[in-house]
């Protein structure tokens, strides 16, 4: 199954969760998502999602000068973002339960 299709639906909540865990710039968020196991996440998708969440008022941003390279635009979660994350987490949990149930039926039938 192509996980990149699944990712499209849950990337928002995944990005929000990573940023809620700690402020990060685009490439940093990307790396943390991959490190968490989302290997198939697309670079441009992460950058685009960060921008959309920022424009939607769910993230704030600030620029940090860097010694070795370019200035980095960091994102931080705000109250609106935290509320969205909470709602999305509940939605995901109930959706995952539902899917587990559906798949459990199949697993049970197969067993």
């Amino acid at each position: 199954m192509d996980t990149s299709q699944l990712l499209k639906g849950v990337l928002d909540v995944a990005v929000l969760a990573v940023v809620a865990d700690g402020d990060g710039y685009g490439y940093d968020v990307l790396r943390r998502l991959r490190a968490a196991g989302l290997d198939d996440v697309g670079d441009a998708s992460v950058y685009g999602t960060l921008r959309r969440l920022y424009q939607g008022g769910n993230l704030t941003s600030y620029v940090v000068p860097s010694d070795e390279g370019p200035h980095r635009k960091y994102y931080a979660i705000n109250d609106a973002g935290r509320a969205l994350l909470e709602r999305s987490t509940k939605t995901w949990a109930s959706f995952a339960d539902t899917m587990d149930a559906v798949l459990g039926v199949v697993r049970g039938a197969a067993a």
Partner: protein
Amino acid sequence: MTLMLTPEARAFVDAVRAELADLPDDDVVELLEDVEQHLAEAAADGRLGDLGSPAAYAAELRAAAGLPARAGGGHAWAPVRRVRGWLAVVMSTRWYGEVRAFAPELRPGWWVLRGYLLVVALAYWTHHSLREVVPIPHVSGNVLLGLLATAGAIVGSVAWGRRRAAYTRVPRTLTIAVNVVTALVALAVLNNAPHRTYHYDYVGASYPPTGLHGPFGQVNDIYPYDAEGRPLVGIQLYDRSGNALAPQVCDTYCPRLSFPLYDDPPQPIGPGSKYGMQTPLEPPWVPAPVVPTVVPTVVPTVKATPKATSKPTPKPTPKPKPTGTPRK
């Protein structure tokens, strides 16, 4: 802000820029900031090869950012699409990437030049002669004002360029318009400027001699006088080949002479004179009478000839008296 990127990364960014061209300027500028940051990080990470094609990257970025998919991709006028294709090919070449990576370093130079050229444009608008335009543009015909305006314009232009680089909020179209107008004016001035210098350059230039030659070199001006020293008007001069000598049209650009051309009325030149021509081919040349070197003494002899044909007794006495010295 433009980052220093490797040529490959720069080419990728430019190709993505082309894919975003249908979006509003502000969106493009902000998206490209992110793209540049991303490409810099990915290049440092050795992951440029993982990014796929610029078109796919741009499509993914737009979708994730909640922007509409590329408009008119299939609807664009076929020639437009073809030109875009050529541009994409050019922009993906290595040399384009290198030039593009190097170009930002030239920007401060252009900002200075732009300030200067803006004042040149202003001076060109109101100039009386090109000397008031280049190299130092005058303002209201005043050098000092021109220098002050130039200094001010350069400072302003640099500030504008830096502001745009820092905040990217100055309307891009306005900057492009100013740049284009400035470049066009520069072209117009450069195109006109040589016309005035040619007049001076040719005098000293060593071209193979053509035309008339006197004892001091090539003859540049011909002032025909009759045997009595009166200027001849309404005549046409011909060279030895029978070609008409066109009078020089000298309305706007001829410099005023600061020295007199001749102290004395010029000597007639004819077949018999000291600096005479060889025999002309065609009749338009009316041979001058044989003349000695001092003009006024000739008068009696010249007038003696028509005596037989016209009036019976035109006396030589009413004529200016031969004094033996040339007229002033």
